[in-house]
C-alpha cells in the first residue's frame, strides 16, 4: 500500500514555498514577454520623452527631466507588471480549469494570498530593475535613500499584486480583466506623476492627485532617489501602507469566503 512506503513527512511551509516558486517559474519561463517587453517599452518612453523634453524642462530646481523621469518609469513598470502577474496567472488558471490543482491541496487562503502577492512583487522588482539598468547609460541617477526606494518598490508591488489577485478572482473572462487594467490601473498610473511633478499642475489637479494612491507610491519612490518629493515621504509611506493593509484585508476576506473560487 502506498502509505506503507518510506513516506517523507509533509510540511506546511512547503506548500506555500512551492506555490511561490511555481508562480515565479511561470513568468520566468516566458521572460521575454513578462520582463523583456516591459523593459523595452519603458526604454522607448524614456528615449521619446527625453528627446522631446530634456533640454526644456527641469524639476526640483536643477534635476534634468530625463533623470526625474527614470524613477517614475521604473515604478510604473514595476506596478503594472506586479498587477499583470497575479491577475493573468489567476484568470488563465480559472479559464483553463487548472486552478483546481491549487485548490485541492492543503494550502490555506493566507498562504495562497502570500504566494501570489510575493510572486507579483518579485516580477515587479525584476522589471523595475531591468528598466533601471537600461536607463543608466543615458543618465546619472543618484540614490540618496536606498531603503526608501526598496520600501516603496516592495509595498507598491504588493498593492498591485493584491489588486491583481482581486481582479483575477473577480474577472470571468479576459475582457473583464482588460477593463480593470485599462480603465483603472492604467489611468491611476499615468495620472500619478510618473511623467511630471504635481507642482507643475493647476491647484485643482494637484488636489485630485492627492486622492490617487499611485501618486504617493511614485512620489515616495522618487524621494529615495533625489531626497526631494512633492509631499513628505512619511505621508506617502503612511498612505501606501494603509492602502496595502486595506487591500490585503479585502483580498483575504474574498479568499476566506472562497469568492468565485470555491462554489
Amino acid at each position: 500500500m502506498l502509505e506503507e512506503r518510506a513516506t517523507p513527512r509533509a510540511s506546511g511551509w512547503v506548500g506555500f514555498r512551492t506555490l511561490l516558486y511555481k508562480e515565479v517559474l511561470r513568468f520566468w519561463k516566458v521572460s521575454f514577454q513578462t520582463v523583456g517587453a516591459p523593459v523595452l517599452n519603458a526604454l522607448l518612453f524614456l528615449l521619446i520623452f527625453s528627446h522631446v523634453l530634456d533640454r526644456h524642462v527641469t524639476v526640483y530646481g536643477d534635476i534634468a527631466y530625463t533623470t526625474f523621469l527614470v524613477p517614475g518609469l521604473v515604478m510604473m513598470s514595476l506596478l503594472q507588471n506586479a498587477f499583470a502577474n497575479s491577475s493573468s496567472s489567476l484568470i488563465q488558471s480559472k479559464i483553463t480549469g487548472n486552478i483546481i490543482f491549487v485548490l485541492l491541496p492543503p494550502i490555506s487562503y493566507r498562504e495562497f494570498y502570500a504566494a501570489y502577492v510575493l510572486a507579483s512583487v518579485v516580477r515587479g522588482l525584476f522589471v523595475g530593475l531591468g528598466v533601471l539598468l537600461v536607463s543608466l547609460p543615458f543618465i546619472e541617477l543618484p540614490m540618496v535613500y536606498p531603503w526608501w526606494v526598496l520600501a516603496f518598490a516592495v509595498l507598491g508591488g504588493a498593492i498591485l499584486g493584491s489588486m491583481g489577485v482581486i481582479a483575477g478572482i473577480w474577472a470571468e473572462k479576459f475582457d473583464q480583466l482588460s477593463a480593470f487594467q485599462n480603465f483603472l490601473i492604467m489611468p491611476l498610473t499615468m495620472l500619478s506623476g510618473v511623467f511630471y511633478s504635481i507642482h507643475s499642475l493647476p491647484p485643482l489637479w494637484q488636489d485630485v492627485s492627492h486622492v490617487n494612491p499611485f501618486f504617493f507610491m511614485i512620489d515616495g519612490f522618487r524621494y529615495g532617489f533625489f531626497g526631494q518629493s512633492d509631499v513628505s515621504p512619511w505621508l506617502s509611506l503612511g498612505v501606501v501602507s494603509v492602502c496595502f493593509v486595506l487591500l490585503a484585508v479585502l483580498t483575504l476576506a474574498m479568499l476566506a469566503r472562497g469568492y468565485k473560487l470555491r462554489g
Partner: protein
Amino acid sequence: MSIPAAIRIQSVSKHYGALKALHEVSLDVMPGEFFGLLGPNGAGKTTLISAMAGLVRPTSGSIAIMGHDVGSDYRNARRQLGVVPQELVFDPFFSVRELLRIQSGYFGFARNDDWIDEILGHLDLLPKADANMRALSGGMKRRVLVAQALVHRPPVIVLDEPTAGVDVELRHGLWQFIRKLNRDGHTIVLTTHYLEEAQALCGRIAMLKNGQVVALDSTEALLRRFATHSLRVRLGLPEVGLALGGVAEEGGWLAFGFETYADVEVLLKRLREAGAGIEEMTLGEPDLEQVFIEVMHHA
C-alpha cells in the same frame, strides 16, 4: 469498535438559489472499498465530489475524509484525498515532471522524486517525463491527471469519469492500475457513464438522481433486486412469442425474463409446443444498465 468510514457524508445539501444540486445526501464509504457513484448528467455526482474535495461548500451537512472534516480540518482531509478531475485540465507552462514535483510540493513533499518516478513508471509516462504538457496526447494527459492525484499517496482516491473519451487500450491499462491500488488497500470512488465498467469494478454503488441518493447497495444486491436474466430468441413465428409474453427488441429478437435457469426449460417447452420455431437463441446475464434504467425510471 467500529471502523471509521473513509468518507462520511452526512445530510449534505448544496442549493444554488432554487436549484437543489444536492439534497440531504448521506452515505459512508468504508476503507478499502471500490465504490461507484452513478447517475445521469446533472444528477449531482461532480458536485458531491467537489464537496468532498473542498471545491464546493455545502449549504448544510458535513463531510469527513478518514475522520477529518473537510471544512474545519481541511488540511488533514485534503491530504487523505486524491482527485482525478473529469475535465482534461493542465498547466501549459510545465513539463510532466515539473508538474508532478509542483503538485507534490503543494501537499508538503519537497523531495518526492523516487515516488514520482514510480508513478510515472506505473502509468507508462517515463518516456514523456520531460515533455511539455502541450505536447502530450489526450490519453497521456489523462494519465498525468491520475499521477497528479497520487503524488501525495492519498488513502482515498476519487476518479470523476476517468475514462471518458479514452481509447480501449488505455482504459484497460488504467483500470488495471486502479484495481492494483484498490487491492493494495486504497479506497476508490468512481463515477462513470460506462455501466459495464462500474459493474465489473465496484463492490458497492450509489445512484443519484436530482441531487438525491435513490439507490445504495452492493452491486450484487442491486443486480438481484432490479435486474433479471433474459432468454433472447429469434423465432420463425414471432407473433407466437409475443403472445407468450416476449418483448420485441431490435433485429427481430424477442426477450423473455426469468428468475432461475430452471425457468428456461419451461419457456422453451412452451415455445416448442406453440410451434414458434426457434431459429437463434442467447442467454443474457443481469446487467447494471437494466438496474440503472429501472432505478431512474421509478425514482
